[in-house]
């Protein structure tokens, strides 16, 4: 699905694919940011083919305007902002990861309160839109893709299109330090194969990995990493 964001921004998908991709966008923060950037690039292309609009067009449009009722803004319950933020606010599949850089320990906490989800969404937005961000994207063995975006000591790990883990198992995230030691990052919660986690206090030289582990997680990986980023 990820590789369709360019085709989507260029309007090069057919109607069915377009709808499918739009549903996917609700659960894919990285794609949403990418589509937005691609749309800005496409707008630059559009400006280069500008040509004087016929004079009569203006009168016709203004006449239409005078007799056309406007649609109201969206209902207040909808959160304004990128659609992935709206998707995240209600999602339980959000993890806050605090890496104690000084001690080299990683403490993970899961928060489900809406306001904390909002903080996470803000943190994610910061990372995903930072001009300094560093991105890594890889296919995951077994299917799907994983994306890591790091900026200013924060990181977002986002997985999409991941097949369901075997019964009684789940996907566990790992932070791999420069010396190769691995620390658990907790389980990555997926909804329909997609999920994201936000981490703070991440040293820029770590990499992240995913393994399949028994539900509840392991102290150290018991299977080969399906993907390693960074």
């Amino acid at each position, binding site marked *: 699905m990820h590789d369709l964001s*360019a085709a989507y921004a*260029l309007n*090069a998908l057919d109607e069915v694919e377009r709808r499918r991709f739009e549903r996917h966008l609700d659960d894919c923060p990285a794609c949403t940011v990418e589509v937005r950037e691609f749309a800005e690039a496409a707008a630059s*292309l*559009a400006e280069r*083919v500008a040509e004087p609009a016929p004079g009569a067009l203006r009168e016709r449009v203004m006449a239409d305007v005078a007799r*056309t009722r406007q649609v109201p803004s969206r209902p207040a319950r909808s959160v304004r902002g990128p659609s992935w933020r709206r998707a995240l606010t209600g999602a339980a599949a959000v993890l806050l990861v605090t890496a104690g850089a000084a001690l080299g320990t990683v403490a993970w906490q899961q928060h489900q309160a809406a306001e904390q989800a909002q903080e996470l969404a803000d943190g994610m937005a910061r990372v995903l839109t930072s001009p300094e961000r560093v991105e890594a994207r890889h296919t995951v063995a077994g299917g799907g893709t994983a994306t890591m975006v790091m900026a200013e000591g924060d990181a977002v790990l986002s997985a999409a299109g991941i097949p369901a883990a075997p019964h009684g198992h789940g996907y566990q995230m790992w932070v791999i330090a420069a010396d190769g030691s691995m620390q658990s990052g907790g389980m990555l919660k997926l909804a329909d194969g997609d999920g994201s986690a936000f981490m703070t206090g991440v040293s820029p030289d770590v990499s992240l990995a995913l393994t399949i582990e028994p539900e509840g997680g392991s102290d150290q990986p018991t299977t080969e990493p399906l993907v390693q980023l960074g």
Partner: protein
Amino acid sequence: MVGRREAAPVVVPDPAETTEALLGRVGRGDEAAFELVYARVADVVFGLARSVLRDPHQAEEVAQEVLLEVWRSAARFDEARGSARAWIATLTHRRAVDRVRSSQAARNRDNAVASRSNEREYDEVVEKVERRLEAERVRHCLDGLTPRQRDTVTLAYYGGRSYTDVADVLKLPLGTVKTRMRDGLIRLRDCLGVGSDA
């Protein structure tokens, strides 16, 4: 003696006001603000519709629909999701593409004929685009793409073709077209410096 009449106070719009801010006022029913938006975007809307549809009459119809849509749904424009120019370009491109594809779908095309005419259309699109691309920056950035990336992006965007069409015209596998489209847009985005914070 001629009496002087008091002029009604006229709200002069600030020319430095961003299009995003103007759209906010348009969303509250401000027709004067809409006229300013019109003046800023009508040429892009018309030119882009013309690029995709080629027929100036159809382009004008689409432009009229799009500009009315800008008025109608200005209150739904959300700056957090992107710039005004991107919103309006997206509206225009989508509507022009919808029209070109529905008229294409209505046509019963023989495959051989279609593929020959596709090639002709492709040449026309590329030529037209190259003729019109005056602006140094975009041209410079398009030059930074590989020829195949450039063909793929321009055929899709200026020509309004789906990626399956593009694959057909360029005789390439779908996966290759998707990859070139994506790599081309990434390079274009980075060259133009139009990240999310732009």
